[in-house]
C-alpha cells in the first residue's frame, strides 16, 4: 500500500475514534469548525498552492452555499441534501462565469478582482433582505436528516462533516497525482512552459476554481445547517483573508496542509479568546487579529511554503512521489 494512502487511513481512523474516546462537546464543536474550514481550504489549496492562483474572495462561495441552502430548505421546504447540491451548482456556475474574465488577470490584478468579487457578494447578502434577511440574519435553518436519522447533535454532525472532508481530501489527492494535477502545478511552475507542452491553462484554472468554489459552497451549506442561523458578517472579506491565512499556514506541499492550517487557525483563535482577556483586560473585539497578522507575516518571510513544507524539509522527505515510486522508494532527499 502507498504511504500516502496509509496516512489517509490512519487519519480516518483517528477521526472515527475521537468522539468515542473524548467526551467533550466543546472539543467536538471545535473539530466541527475545523472540518468546515478544512473543506474550504482543501479546494483553496488546490487553487492557490498547486495552481498558484490567489483568491481573496472565497468567503463569497462559502456564503452563497450557506444562503442558498438556507433559502431553499427553510423558505421553500426543500430537502437539505437537495438544497446543498443546488448551492454547489449555483456556486460552480458563478465561479465559471466570474472566472472567465478573472483568470485572464495575474498577480496583483487577480488579487484585487477576487477581493472585489467578495465585497460585491457580501453587499448582496446585506442588501437583498427579502431573501437573506439582511443584517438581521436568517433564522430557522432546518437540520439535515438522513431517513429518520437527524444530524442535530454535535457528535452526529461531526461524523457528517468529516466524512465529507475526507472524501474531498481523497478526491484532491487523486487529482494531484494525475495528469490534471501536473497540469495545475505546471501553471504555477511556468505558464510559458505549460503552454509549450499543450496545456490549456485557462481551462485548468477554471476547473480548479470551480472545484474550490464547490468545496467552499458545500462547507458553507453544512455550516448553515449546523448553526441554523446565519448573517452576512459571517461571510465578509475578513473571512476570505482568514482562509488565506489557513492555506498559507498549512502550505501546499501536501494535501494535509488544508487540515493543518485550519486546525492551527481555529485552535489559535480559541486559545487567544481565552488568554487575551486575562492579559489585557480592556481589549475587546477582534484584538486577536494582531496575532494572525504577525503569523501571516512571519510565515511568509521565514516559511513561505507553510508548515507541511517545513516539516518535509526537517524530515528530509523532499523527493516528490508519483504512482510507481512513492517517496519511500527514494529515501532521504538532499
Amino acid at each position: 500500500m502507498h504511504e500516502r494512502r496509509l496516512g489517509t487511513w490512519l487519519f480516518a481512523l483517528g477521526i472515527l475514534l475521537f468522539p468515542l474516546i473524548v467526551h467533550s462537546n466543546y472539543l467536538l464543536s471545535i473539530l466541527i469548525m475545523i472540518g468546515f474550514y478544512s473543506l474550504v481550504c482543501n479546494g483553496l489549496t488546490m487553487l492557490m498552492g498547486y495552481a498558484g492562483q490567489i483568491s481573496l474572495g472565497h468567503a463569497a462561495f462559502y456564503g452563497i452555499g450557506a444562503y442558498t441552502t438556507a433559502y431553499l430548505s427553510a423558505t421553500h421546504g426543500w430537502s437539505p441534501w437537495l438544497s446543498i447540491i443546488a448551492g454547489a451548482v449555483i456556486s460552480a456556475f458563478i465561479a465559471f462565469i466570474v472566472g472567465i474574465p478573472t483568470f485572464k488577470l495575474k498577480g496583483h490584478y487577480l488579487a484585487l478582482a477576487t477581493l472585489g468579487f467578495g465585497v460585491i457578494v457580501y453587499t448582496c447578502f446585506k442588501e437583498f433582505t427579502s431573501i437573506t434577511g439582511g443584517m438581521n440574519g436568517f433564522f430557522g435553518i432546518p437540520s439535515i436528516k438522513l431517513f429518520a436519522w437527524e444530524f442535530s447533535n454535535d457528535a452526529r454532525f461531526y461524523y457528517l462533516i468529516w466524512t465529507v472532508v475526507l472524501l474531498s481530501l481523497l478526491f484532491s489527492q487523486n487529482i494531484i497525482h494525475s495528469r490534471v494535477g501536473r497540469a495545475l502545478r505546471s501553471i504555477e511552475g511556468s505558464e510559458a512552459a505549460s503552454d509549450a507542452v499543450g496545456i490549456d491553462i485557462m481551462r485548468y484554472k477554471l476547473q480548479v476554481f470551480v472545484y474550490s468554489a464547490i468545496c467552499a459552497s458545500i462547507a458553507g451549506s453544512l455550516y448553515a445547517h449546523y448553526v441554523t442561523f446565519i448573517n452576512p458578517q459571517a461571510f465578509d472579506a475578513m473571512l476570505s483573508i482568514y482562509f488565506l491565512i489557513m492555506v498559507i499556514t498549512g502550505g501546499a506541499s501536501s494535501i494535509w496542509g488544508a487540515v493543518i492550517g485550519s486546525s492551527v487557525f481555529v485552535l489559535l483563535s480559541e486559545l487567544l479568546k481565552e488568554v487575551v482577556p486575562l492579559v489585557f483586560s480592556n481589549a475587546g473585539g477582534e484584538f486577536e487579529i494582531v496575532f494572525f497578522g504577525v503569523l501571516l507575516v512571519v510565515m511568509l518571510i521565514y516559511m513561505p511554503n507553510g508548515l507541511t513544507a517545513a516539516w518535509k524539509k526537517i524530515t528530509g522527505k523532499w523527493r516528490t512521489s508519483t504512482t510507481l515510486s512513492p517517496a519511500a522508494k527514494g529515501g532521504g532527499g538532499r
Partner: protein
Amino acid sequence: MKRNGQVLLTVEHITKQFGGVVAVNDVSFDVNKGEILAVIGPNGAGKTTLFNIVTGILAPSSGTVRFNGTDITGKKPYQIAQLGMTRTFQNLEVFTNMSVIENVMTGAHRNMKTSFLQAGLRVPSVKKEEKAVEEKAMRCLEKVGIAHLAYERAETLPYGNQRLLEIARAIAAEPALILLDEPMAGLNDEESRWLVEVILQLRKEGLTFVFVEHDMETVMAISDHIVVLDNGVKIGEGTPEEIYRNKAVVAAYLGEEETVC
C-alpha cells in the same frame, strides 16, 4: 534554393513590430521533415521573437505560419503545441515545483486523456495511463541521459541537466517538430558535445529540429540548413557550405563575430 523533401513548417513574410522596433522583418523560409535547421544571427537579430511567433506566444504584425499544412497564425500556443510542435526556452522554464520525472510526464500531457472528474475519482483507466506515462517519461529521460535523476526535485539540478530536462519534456509530447532556443548556452564543451549527440540521435528517430545557436562550430557541424537573420531581416539561407561562401553573411555576421571575439 529549392530543397528536396516534404515541408513541415512554412514561415511566410513574417513581420513583427514592437512600437518603433521592427524585430522581425518580412522573413520567409521552409523547414523540411527530418531536417535540422539553424537560425543564426547576432544578439537582438530577432531569433527569439521569431520562435515566439512560430509557437504562438506572439502574434505577428503580418505574415503567416503553416505547420503540417494547417495555417497556425493566430492560434494559441497550447493549440499549436497540441498539433505537435514543442520548444525549449533560452532562459530555462523548468517546472521547479515538481520532480524531474513529473516535469517530463507533464510534457506528455497532450497524448493523455484523464479528465478532472476521472482523475479525482481515480477510475481504473487513470491508473493504467499513469503507469504508462511514467514509463514513457523514464524512456525520455534515458534518451537525454538523466534517468538516474528522475526522482530529484527539478530545481536542484545543475544548469546543464535542466537544459536536458527541457528537451526530455519536449520529446515526451511526441512532437513532429522541436524548437530549441540556444540549447548550448551556458553548457561546457563536454555537455555541448553530449547535447549534439542527443539531437542527432533524436533526428534519426524521425524528429525535426529548428534551433538557435551562437556557437558556429556546432551550427556548421550539425545543421542541414541555415537561416541567417540580422536586424530582423533574413540576409542569407542555405547549407553550411553556402553560408560560408555567402559574402553578405560573412560581412554582416561572421565578420562581426570575429572582431568581437
